[in-house]
Structures are given as structure tokens and as C-alpha cells.
């Protein structure tokens, strides 16, 4: 063999064109893998995500700076810091009040269950993990977000992602070691969610079922609620554009997600076949694909109280 001959890794018959044809066959097989085998491709994605996320995150920061989001926030905070703080506190207190009311309802249900000798559900605590948004997918057919928090931060599938404390972003669908993927509520793949229209900050209106409309918003029918009708006139308070819609889904979501803000109503239409019934279009206050940071909320089951460390505390 000549000294300068390249090292032959593949057999002679497996030439470059055959190698390409083989690669295409492998890609075709992978492209049509049945869903239950798609876990195989997840391990291939991890190194690529880890390699690309620093550049993607830095570029995202530059874009947000260029878009002026950070500057606008700083300007608003500098112009009226007390007002911004009061607004934040008001949103937070309003959310807590509504959630407390929900908890009272829930406790009443639990008491009723205890009285029927049913089993008491174990205690639950909420864990909040702030996470920086790395970015969206390369293919815009989907709106899934990748954020910098994963198994290392004890994030689990199903955690709820919010922004600005109370604005619902979506739910964690897959978790890697240092990143996780969030399916935003306005992604086409998201299943319908139940919401409740707020007549004002505290009064609840009718419920609604909202589905993503493919344009970054959610749309759906308003449920008729006879209990909201005025007993004297028989009419219920009309819903208006600008009203807030809060999350009210208890089937597949944790209770802690109830009363988070979904968005505001931007359009109301009568259903063509049922003119007395309305459909609404809801737009999130903060578009999930433009948020820079989220907080991941997840329930953690409370274990037994930790044992005191040796030489620490204890009864004399």
C-alpha cells in the first residue's frame, strides 16, 4: 500500500454513492418510524440541542433587545415604578383571591368526601422554577418552546409554565437533562382547554372551551350558564371584548393551574346555526413564542417531615 494512501474505513464495494443511497434509506425508515419507537430519535436530538442552544439563546437575547422589549420594560419601570409595582401586586392578589375561593370549594368537596368516609388525598406543595427560554423549533409548523431547565432541576413532564407570575404559557411535554420542551396553549397540537370568562376582576361569567386557531390565538364556544341569569329579567350580563379569560380546567391539569390568566377576548361572534350562542376569540396577553423567561410550576408530593440534623434543634 502506498504511504500516502488514505485510510479505507469502508469496504471497496461500499463506494460514496452507495453510502449516500444507504443514508437516504436509513432516513426514510426513520422518517416513517411508528410513534411508539420515536423515543429512539430523542437521544439523537439531545447533543444537537445542547450544541445549538448557546448560540440560539444569545441570538434570541439580541433580537429581544433589538425589538425593544427590554428597553420598553425599563422605560415603563423608570417612568412609573410605583405604578408598575402596584399593577403587578394587583394581578398577583387577584389571582390569589380567586385561587383561594377555588381552594375553599375544593376543601368543601374534600370535607364532604371525608364525611362519606372517603380517603383523604395526600398533601401537596407547589414548586416554582424560573427558566430562560432558549427558543422555538426550526420548523415553524410547530410552536414548541425549549427552556433551560430539566431533570437536573427536578422538572417533570406535566409541569405548568407561566410568565409574569400568572399568565399561562403551556405545559411541559418532554424533559431532558438540562432542557425541557413546553407545548404552548396556542399551538395547534394542544388539546382544547376550559376557561372561565371574568365579568370583572372578581366576578365569574360563563365558561368556555377554547381550541388553538392556528394564528396564535384560541377560539371556542361560550357555554350557556342559567345560574348567571338575572332572576327578575331572565337575562345574563353580556360578555364584552377586553374581558379576561382565566383557566378552569381540572380534568388533566393540576389544581394549582386554575385561575391562571389565558388572555383577553378580542372578538365575539354569534354562531351561524345558533344566533343566541356566542363564540369568542382569545388572545394571550404575552404571546408564548415571544416570552424570554417562564416559571415552571409543579406539584410536589409532601413526604414525611425531614429529620432534624444531629446537634440541631430537638426538645431539651
Amino acid at each position, binding site marked *: 500500500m502506498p504511504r500516502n494512501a488514505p485510510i479505507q474505513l469502508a469496504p471497496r464495494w461500499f463506494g460514496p454513492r452507495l453510502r449516500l443511497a444507504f443514508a437516504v434509506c436509513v*432516513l426514510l425508515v426513520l*422518517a*416513517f418510524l411508528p410513534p411508539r419507537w420515536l423515543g429512539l*430519535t430523542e437521544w439523537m436530538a439531545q447533543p444537537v440541542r445542547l450544541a445549538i442552544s448557546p448560540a440560539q439563546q444569545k441570538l434570541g437575547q439580541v433580537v429581544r433587545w433589538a425589538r425593544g422589549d427590554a428597553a420598553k420594560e425599563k422605560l415603563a419601570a423608570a417612568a412609573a415604578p410605583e405604578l408598575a409595582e402596584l399593577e403587578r401586586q394587583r394581578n398577583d392578589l387577584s389571582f390569589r383571591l380567586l385561587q383561594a375561593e377555588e381552594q375553599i370549594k375544593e376543601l368543601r368537596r374534600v370535607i364532604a368526601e371525608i364525611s362519606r368516609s372517603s380517603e383523604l388525598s395526600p398533601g401537596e406543595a407547589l414548586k416554582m422554577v424560573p427558566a430562560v427560554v432558549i427558543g422555538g423549533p426550526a420548523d415553524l*409548523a410547530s410552536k414548541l418552546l*425549549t427552556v433551560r431547565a430539566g431533570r437536573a432541576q427536578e422538572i417533570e413532564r406535566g409541569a405548568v409554565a407561566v410568565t409574569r407570575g400568572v399568565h399561562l404559557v403551556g405545559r411541559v*411535554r418532554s424533559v431532558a437533562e438540562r432542557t425541557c*420542551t413546553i407545548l404552548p396553549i396556542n399551538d395547534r397540537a394542544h*388539546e382544547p382547554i376550559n376557561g372561565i370568562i371574568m365579568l370583572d376582576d372578581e366576578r365569574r361569567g360563563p365558561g368556555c372551551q377554547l381550541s388553538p386557531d392556528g394564528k*396564535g390565538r384560541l377560539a371556542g364556544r361560550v357555554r350557556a350558564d342559567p345560574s348567571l341569569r338575572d332572576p327578575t329579567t331572565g337575562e345574563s350580563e353580556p360578555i364584552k371584548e377586553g374581558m379576561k379569560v382565566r383557566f378552569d380546567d381540572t380534568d388533566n391539569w393540576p389544581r394549582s393551574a386554575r385561575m391562571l390568566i389565558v388572555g383577553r377576548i378580542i372578538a365575539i361572534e354569534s354562531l351561524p346555526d345558533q344566533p343566541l350562542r356566542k363564540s369568542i376569540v382569545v388572545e394571550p396577553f404575552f404571546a408564548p413564542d415571544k416570552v424570554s423567561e417562564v416559571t415552571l410550576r409543579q406539584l410536589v408530593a409532601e413526604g414525611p417531615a425531614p429529620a432534624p440534623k444531629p446537634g440541631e434543634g430537638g426538645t431539651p
Partner: protein
Amino acid sequence: MSWPVALVFGYLLLAIELVIPTELRVGAGDVAPSFVVPFVVYIAMFAPALTAYWSAVWLGLAIDLASPRGTEAYIIVGPNAIGLLAAAYVIVTLRAVVNRNPLALVVFSIVAAAMCGLVVVAIMTLRSWYTPQIPWFAGVELSRRLFSSVYTGLSAAVVGLALFPLHGLFKFHDPYHRRGPGGGSGHARPF
């Protein structure tokens, strides 16, 4: 072709692909330009055919691996890799009959993005028959991708402005240039 140089540019353009198209979206249908497609076209215009095909496969694979889909965040490996390979094949076939200049890059990028979009839509439509976890609207996606391919012409003009002055860095061996007995540069000339 110099693979390390292509790797650096590919990495940068992939990062751009993950951030900038979201900002440049037009309308409610998410019509957005691609920055990786013009790069694949650029390589397909100047590199030997096999090098162009492999570049397209690797870049497409990177896009696929950076695109979780559906309610379960599935990673579908293949649609973009095969799509970009098909696009590179079209460009390698066409490059002999067109003068290779920045304007050709713009036109080729529109053709390549449309070709890639067609292949991706075909694969994902077939997949959607047995993968309900990934909602797929073939008509909507096809129109979005075809409009996006026209928009990609604009991004190709920008990418071309950056890539053509750096042509020497890539050390392309012109597939249509035959070395004479006295040797030659062996590098393709962009104009």
C-alpha cells in the same frame, strides 16, 4: 470544499434559522424565510455533487433534530434531511445551465425551498395517517411553505451578500473545471 468552514457557517445559520424567521413572520399563516436553504443552495452551486448532497443531508438532519413536533414533542428524523437532499439534487442538475452569481442564488433558493417544502409536506402527510399526536393540515402547510419559499428569496439575497465575498474560504473544487497539465487553481469562480 473545506468542511470546517462549512460547519462554522452551518452552525451560525442554523442558530439564525431558530430565531430570526419567527421575527420576520408575515401574516397569521407563519410565512417566514429560511436561512439554511440559501446556504445549501450556495454549496450545491459550487461544490462537487456528492459533497453538496451530504451537506444538505447534515443540515436537514440538524433542522429535524431541532424541531420537536406535536403533543408529545416527537423528534421526526428525515423530512427536512430528505427535503434538502432533493433540493440540492435539483440545484446540482440546474447549475450547469445558469451563470453562478448572487441573482442565481436568489432564484435557486426559491426553487430549492419549494422543493424541500413539497417533500416535507409529502412525508408528514403520510405520517399523519398513523400519528394523531402531530396535527397536520397538508393544504395549510403546503401553501405556507410555498409562500415561504418566495420569502426565502429575500433571505437568500442577504445570505448571498455575506457568502459570495467569502467564497475563497470554502475552497470549492469546481466540478466543471478540468486541471490542465500545467495545473490550475481548481477553485470555482463565483462570477
